[in-house]
């Protein structure tokens, strides 16, 4: 158990509203990742972070922004939610110091109506 929590676990929001998802970890890992998972597409990388205030884009970053002001928290923001952003969002940590293992949170199910 890598001590990863995500909040909220479920959210329904309307098109055009801003939404922020939170990923929290308790083990001081440097690397954190945000993915979305959709039927037929698998897991796609949105953004990732390699340290406080250090982030980079993934495969599907348009419409998303991230922030990491503390090691333990990685926030994903949808500035103006669209129906195409309805998905399950997973946060993950990666530990290169421990056999390169990657651990995932329980996920957030987001529905944009």
């Amino acid at each position, binding site marked *: 158990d890598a001590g990863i929590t995500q909040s909220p676990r479920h959210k329904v929001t309307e098109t055009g509203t801003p939404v922020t998802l939170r990923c929290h970890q308790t083990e001081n890992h440097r690397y954190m990742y945000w993915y979305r998972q959709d039927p037929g597409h*698998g897991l796609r990388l949105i953004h*990732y972070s390699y340290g406080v205030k250090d982030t*980079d884009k*993934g495969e599907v970053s348009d419409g998303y922004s991230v922030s990491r002001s503390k090691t333990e928290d990685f926030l994903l923001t949808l500035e103006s939610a669209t129906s195409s952003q309805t998905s399950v969002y*997973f946060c*993950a940590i*990666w530990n290169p110091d421990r056999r*390169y293992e*990657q651990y995932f949170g329980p996920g957030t199910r987001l529905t944009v109506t």
Partner: protein
Amino acid sequence: EDQVTQSPEALRLQEGESSSLNCSYTVSGLRGLFWYRQDPGKGPEFLFTLYSAGEEKEKERLKATLTKKESFLHITAPKPEDSATYLCAVQAHRDDKIIFGKGTRLHILP
């Protein structure tokens, strides 16, 4: 561009019927290839990391192998509890991205 292709998309086996799942990859400078198991409604669960061609790792009924172009996840005498989606991912040396394939849905019939 890094790519990961998994096959088959879905596989149904009888309990005890061994088989293999395939993960073909294209990446410039492989740092690591990862295998995960995902149960419905849950996050992926880490299984293995493979680093170089020829490497093998085992865990219970699962054995992962790696060549320069693909990886196999061999399942020996599977049980119904092995039913899940199995995911493969790769990471290159040049950055810290971890890119996934679409997965193989495995169903083991009792």
